[in-house]
């Protein structure tokens, strides 16, 4: 009894979620996301397909398109199926060009399944956080 009273008087440890936000750790693995290279302003992806092969759940898919001069291959669509992704981080490790990373976005619930299939390489990209506020 004495102990529960002591707990009764000690401060509470819960966190009021919507108001107080949890500051994730630096290495927090949220959703996969393709930031813009601050130097060139473009995506760093070189279509080497390493990440697609590394992903155990087949949630990455790259659609290639023809470049302006008809020969070079350019990245058309970098499709990321968040619905099958298990946030294991193997793709980020496999990428040698540091093109993709896992940002701190953990509120990824949506109302319809299609919204879970994201196209990561649009210039703006789905509300990707800026490079700074990682």
């Amino acid at each position: 009894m004495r102990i529960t009273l002591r707990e009764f008087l000690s401060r509470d440890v819960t966190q009021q979620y919507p108001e107080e936000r949890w500051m994730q750790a630096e290495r927090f693995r949220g959703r996969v996301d393709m930031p813009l290279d601050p130097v060139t302003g473009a995506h760093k992806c070189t279509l080497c397909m390493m990440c697609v092969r590394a992903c155990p759940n087949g949630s990455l898919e790259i659609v290639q398109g023809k470049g302006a001069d008809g020969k070079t291959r350019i990245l058309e669509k970098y499709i990321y199926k968040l619905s099958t992704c298990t946030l294991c981080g193997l793709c980020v490790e496999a990428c040698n060009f540091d093109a993709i990373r896992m940002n701190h976005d953990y509120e990824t619930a949506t109302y319809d399944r299609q919204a879970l299939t994201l196209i990561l390489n649009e210039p703006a990209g789905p509300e990707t956080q800026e490079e700074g506020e990682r």
Partner: protein
Amino acid sequence: MTQQPASIGAPRAPQSKDALKTEEYWINMGPQHPSTHGVLRLVLRLDGETVLQAVPHLGYIHRSVERMCEWDTYPQITHLTDRLDYLSAMITNWAWVRAVEQAMNLEVPERGEVLRVIVAELNRLASHAMWFGAYCMDLGAASAFFYGFREREMVVDLFEALCGQRLTYHYLRIGGVSADLTPDFEKRVLEICETFKRALDEYEGLVTKNVVFRQRTEGIGILTAEKALGYGCSGPVLRGSGVKHDLRKDDPYGAYGRYQFDVPVGSVGDCMDRYKVRMEEMRQSVRILEQAIRALPGGPVIADVKAIRPPKGETYTRVETARGDMGVYLVSQGAAKPYRVKFRSPCFSNLSCFPEIAVGWKVADAVSILGSLDVVIPDIDR
């Protein structure tokens, strides 16, 4: 309900002629039930409140992880093992990673081994803290659940800082660990050790010495040593029955050989013994952590291994998770994907003794016994 074949079960007590005419009846405990810790269905045959026979039905969360392993390459399988015994995900990672390293007899750098021990013991602390909360909730003391989780939260925050996830860590890699420690890691681990020491004394006072708790656990669900061995129980369940068997000592692996810690053993094998063994194990884990943090070797954390392709052949390795020994039987044909993988789940065997030790006890005791076995259902169904 199909009539369950009575593999193990007690016949009803003989009815004296003039006794009140009572009937036995079947009751479904699960798959949705507050104290089965997941989707486990126990069909109980009751006579009033006394359990005459318990027939567990498994497989509600069977994802056939073993079949999925045949599709993925070796590194990809590591993240699958997070989802087996999710309360000691670090240690289940280690079980898989150790199997592949043994198959390729790959040398793990010293710092990687020590980090694995630290992370495994932290995970054991978090898992036992969670079990403590859930077990007290099963017996009715709801507030102890929150105290258990308050302690566990510190460890989970540390893991988030270390590897980025709070439950499915995927921190270990074949050949070592994926990332080195964060700068404030040592300080936080020592902080956790202090908190757990104080918390364990508080739990002792709140629960262990509590008369009602002792009445609900002492002498209940006796699992004799011989039966425990026969049923293949392991971990705190086996040690609770008085058998001193801990893989970290009997089948040493990793850097456990460097640290002094003793293996708590129960005597009778009732719920209280299993409870005491786990509480003592938490203290031993704190001891290991303190020794490990003070002597952290330098150097790389992962061996650089190019192609992970174990030669043709098979290995069987075991690791001590928070619930018992988790074995990995790996058969490889030299390809990039394993030919056959079998995860020996500690909870599967720990639960197999339940139908025998739950007979004759009340429904409330069945809940207490199941809680003391500390089963994690995805680990059973795989």
